[in-house]
């Protein structure tokens, strides 16, 4: 997987177009419809993996990676003056919801997709396609047409958008035959805040704050993805100490989230003691984060150019104490999970996601890795400082709730290992470079992929000559995970929906933007 096998056909062969000089670090090309369609075809055959598909007035962009070497990345851009472009979703289902979102926001219409229903637009904004070249009046809201389900004795359970617990809003339409789920249909978009419109014209500081709040549980990862993209565009390089501190915060975030998830999954299996103990561990991470960096979730600590808060010697000592403590106490809890047959009865074989589907959707994070996908943006495409640190990427084949839990457990161990390495090799020096924006600069474009706790986050920016955001797109890992929950739940009992959902733990806010 690290170096591509030369005997395999080149998936980028004859994808020709005009190279856009200002795009870094991977190439972006302006293509005609034939190259666009060719890329769609290679996606459908699995030679390429879809990383993202987003719009701009009159242009659609699509980022793809070589499936055999995900470090090879290409962005294709297709100008569509008539507002129409060949649908990728027609041949490659992972693109369908992305295309629906592009249609809602930019009035760019895919030709020939299997599903044309609106996605983020629920008919409540008072405007249609708010980011389109011309302003459009709102269209009268139509009743959302859920997919029909036929069959004797099928009943439907509509759940949400307001749920029973303290969780985000979304609607689930469960069709069941007795106890068994025959179809789950998701409807999302409830938390759509118009982030991409707010980003347009924002200065870098405000834009970084907005980006860091796409999904609050991944605030460090989003801050990092945005910073990487801006730094790629402007040619900035943050100081080494900042790079290390960023990784430290990112791993603390991963640790806190995984600890919380392990507890919550077990709680949904009716085993509350794990939740209590894991939430104590999670809380201890957040408290040390607050003591070291001044914010429990470390929001707004990663910014373009570096980080805003330094770590002193006392802080390092605190984190060393924290990791030692977690290492000791977490192992006990994992033994408890491992020895409780009644709990594993709920997790083993539940909510199975087949490896083929995970690969087709390019699902990242614990969802992809629990279904046989060797992927991790820290290594492919990779970024500093992970090239200098040792860590393993756990992969399992089973794809059930149990596998997704074990991937998290292994990643907790790896994050602790990474944190300890970062602390012993933390160099002295500045934590931020103040680079002036040269007003003579032409617009610059940058892209980044960063591994959040949930999976790979893609950030793409174009910065104008005044140093403001002209266009920014942020793609949450959940885009390629939410649809898979629909597949994984099929054939399970209705009562297992919460535990399956928790084991996926997709982001609503990151997806809805």
């Amino acid at each position, binding site marked *: 997987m690290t170096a591509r096998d030369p005997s395999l056909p080149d998936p980028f062969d004859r994808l020709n177009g005009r190279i856009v000089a200002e795009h870094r670090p991977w190439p972006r090309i302006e293509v005609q419809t034939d190259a666009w369609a060719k890329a769609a075809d290679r996606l459908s055959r699995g030679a390429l993996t879809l990383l993202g598909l987003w719009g701009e007035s009159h242009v659609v962009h699509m980022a793809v990676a070589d499936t055999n070497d995900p470090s090879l990345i290409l962005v294709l851009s297709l100008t569509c003056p008539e507002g129409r472009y060949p649908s990728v979703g027609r041949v490659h289902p992972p693109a369908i919801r992305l295309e629906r979102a592009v249609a809602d926001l930019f009035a760019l219409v895919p030709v020939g997709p299997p599903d044309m229903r609106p996605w983020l637009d629920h008919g409540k904004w008072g405007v249609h396609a708010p980011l389109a070249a011309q302003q459009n009046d709102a269209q009268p809201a139509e009743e959302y047409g859920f997919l029909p389900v036929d069959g004797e004795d099928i009943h439907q359970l509509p759940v949400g958008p307001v749920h029973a617990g303290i969780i985000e809003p979304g609607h689930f339409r469960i069709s069941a035959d007795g106890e068994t789920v025959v179809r789950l249909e998701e409807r999302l978009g409830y938390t759509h805040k118009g982030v991409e419109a707010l980003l347009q014209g924002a200065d870098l500081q405000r834009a970084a704050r907005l980006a860091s709040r796409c999904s609050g549980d991944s605030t460090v990862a989003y801050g990092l993805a945005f910073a990487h993209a801006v730094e790629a565009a402007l040619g900035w390089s943050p100081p080494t100490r900042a790079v290390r501190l960023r990784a430290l915060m990112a791993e603390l975030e991963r640790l806190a989230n995984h600890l919380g998830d392990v507890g919550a999954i077990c709680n949904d299996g009716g085993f509350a003691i794990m939740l209590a103990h894991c939430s104590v561990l999670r809380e201890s991470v957040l408290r040390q984060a607050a003591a070291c960096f001044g914010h429990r979730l470390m929001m707004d600590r990663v910014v373009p150019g570096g980080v805003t808060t330094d770590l002193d010697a006392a802080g390092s000592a605190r984190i060393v104490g924290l990791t030692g403590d977690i290492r000791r106490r977490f192992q*006990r*809890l994992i033994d408890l999970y491992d020895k409780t047959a009644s709990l594993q009865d709920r997790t083993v074989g539940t909510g199975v996601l087949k490896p083929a589907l995970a690969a087709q959707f390019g699902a990242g994070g614990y969802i992809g890795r629990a279904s046989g996908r060797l992927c991790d943006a820290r290594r492919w495409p990779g970024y500093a400082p992970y090239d200098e640190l040792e860590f393993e990427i756990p992969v399992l084949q089973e794809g059930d709730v149990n596998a997704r839990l074990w991937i998290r457990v292994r990643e907790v161990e790896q994050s602790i290992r990474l944190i300890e390495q970062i602390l012993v090799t933390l160099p002295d020096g500045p934590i931020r470079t103040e680079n002036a924006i040269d007003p003579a600069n032409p617009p610059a474009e940058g892209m980044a992929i960063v591994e959040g706790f949930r999976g790979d986050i893609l950030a793409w920016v174009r910065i104008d000559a005044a140093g403001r955001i002209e266009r920014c797109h942020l793609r949450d890992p959940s885009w390629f995970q939410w649809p898979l929950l629909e597949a994984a739940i099929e054939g399970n009992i209705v009562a297992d929906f919460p535990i399956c959902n928790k084991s996926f733990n997709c982001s609503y806010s990151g997806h809805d933007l």
Partner: protein
Amino acid sequence: MRRTLFESFTRRPFTEKLAAPADPEIARMAAELDVKARRRLGRGLSLRLVDAGSCNACELELNALSNPYYDLERFGLRFVASPRHADVLLVTGPVTKNMREALLRTYDAMPAPKWVVAVGDCAACGGLYAGSYACERGAAAVLPVDLRIAGCPPSPTQLLEGLLALVAS
């Protein structure tokens, strides 16, 4: 399992006394809590959360209130699943237009008397999202708000102080 359970008997509890609040006013209100909560509401105050478009960080901190350190229920405060059982509606997020109706319906489903608390800067005033085509300007744009708890997100301690203040008001 046995070891973990047994340890719970011998170890000091995680639950912390709420540190004397920075604001003496809040300390006084907390002291009155027991009396007032009982008089007004019987045995406690039931909370129902609606995420009206938050970034989910406010939810993380609300969830933390139930961990053993903060143990919300010892104050007679608890989260309930149904709005019909709730006295207080907690709102997070700037109130997206897509969530407006669900939020209003939840509020309407609650029996009177009822209170509304805007949790976090977004719900308090729209936060960073004020002026977006997709958002209202916080909870007060659609509901009568009784209390605002500022912060992005407010820490569990700030949340506790705010909620205790509500009971005392």
